[in-house]
């Protein structure tokens, strides 16, 4: 198979676009498509400061790489959750992020680390075990912690927007799960851009959620992996040990089987969903929840008093966050 733009051998055939490209043209296409998505969905402008949530995986490191190439002011945030021992999953992931930043001295990437154990006294597995949330798996606690920390660092650091490396496979797996369970509130909120929101406060708390964007939301997962492989990004190949058997992975497998039989199934599922959402098929207003600032940290919460993150640390140990 040859590149559509030149006669060199293609390295990737994207059946959903009927497009095969060589290494050089694939990299050009990938960067241009990212830029296009940022502009199409009005994610952020050239003068805005972007915080990229980096995990050490292919998607987030590829995103950081592309944003730096495009000239955006993009800093990285790594949350060290303390999974595994000193040579375990978190340590290995963190090493990949450090290596990525060190290999780009010209771009001067700023890279922040929030070490859960150092800041809050416990690792993710420890806090998950203590609070017994999530039926023995720390995934729900992990999500809660990451959302809180990412929002805090985005707001405290004066960033305009938080960018994550979610790809189309991630998005369709979530959508598929939400449709199966008719989670209408979640369906209504799923979008390439989640606008900033302000928590109403009578006490002057500076609450609110930072704007969140997903510039890779139109790329298949194999495309972000191909970009990382071709550009030599050294990412963590191993899966998080807690992801084994995760429902989202099962959904991804089902969707990929459908994609095999009928190319572009995933792309059409997502794009037609976005079109339906834009046309008002899902009513966000009905699902809207009033946000209040947490009485401890000021971050938004749907109930008065402490947010779920602060309850994790305060209720059971009495420790200050």
């Amino acid at each position, binding site marked *: *198979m040859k590149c559509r733009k030149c006669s060199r*051998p*293609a*390295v*990737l*055939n994207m059946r959903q676009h009927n497009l*095969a490209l060589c*290494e050089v043209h694939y990299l050009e296409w990938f960067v241009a498509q990212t830029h296009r998505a940022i502009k199409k969905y009005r994610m952020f402008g050239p003068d805005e400061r972007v915080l990229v949530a980096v995990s050490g*995986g*292919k*998607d987030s490191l590829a995103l950081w790489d592309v944003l730096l190439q495009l000239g955006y002011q993009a800093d990285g945030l790594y949350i060290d959750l303390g999974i595994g021992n000193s040579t375990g999953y978190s340590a290995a992931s963190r090493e990949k992020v450090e290596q990525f930043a060190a290999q780009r001295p010209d771009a001067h990437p700023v890279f922040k680390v929030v070490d859960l154990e150092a800041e809050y006294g416990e690792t993710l597995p420890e806090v998950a075990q203590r609070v017994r949330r999530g039926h023995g798996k720390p*995934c729900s606690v992990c999500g809660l912690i990451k959302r809180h920390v990412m929002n805090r660092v985005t707001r405290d650091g004066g960033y305009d927007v938080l960018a994550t490396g979610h790809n189309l*496979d*991630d998005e369709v*797996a979530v959508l598929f799960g939400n449709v199966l369970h008719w989670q209408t509130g979640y369906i209504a909120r799923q979008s390439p851009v989640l606008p900033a929101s302000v928590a109403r406060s009578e006490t002057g708390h500076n609450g609110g959620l930072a704007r969140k964007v997903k510039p890779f939301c139109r790329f*298949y*997962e*194999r495309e*972000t*992996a*191909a970009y990382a*492989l*071709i550009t030599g990004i050294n990412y963590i*190949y191993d*899966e*998080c040990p*807690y*992801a084994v058997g*995760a429902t*989202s*992975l099962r959904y*991804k*497998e089902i969707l*990929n*089987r459908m*994609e*095999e039989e009928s190319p572009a199934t995933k792309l059409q599922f997502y794009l037609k969903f976005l079109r339906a959402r834009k046309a008002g098929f899902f009513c966000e207003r009905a699902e809207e929840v009033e946000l209040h600032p947490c009485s401890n940290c000021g971050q938004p919460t749907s109930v008065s008093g402490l947010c779920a993150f602060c309850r994790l640390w305060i209720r059971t140990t009495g420790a200050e966050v």
Partner: protein
Amino acid sequence: MKITYRDREWELQGRRRVRDAIKEVRLIPQTVLAVRDGKLLTEDVMLEKDDEVKLIAVISGG
């Protein structure tokens, strides 16, 4: 030819296309990338009997 994927390894006899080799080891072609001598291969590439191909899993998350 030798096919490797994570910590697994298969020996397949004769020539076949990348797509057929992936299916033969019971993986979904959409979920892997094939690499030979450090270069990505499209699914139509014919593999020779002495080739060594590494399949890279592309699905992640939890």
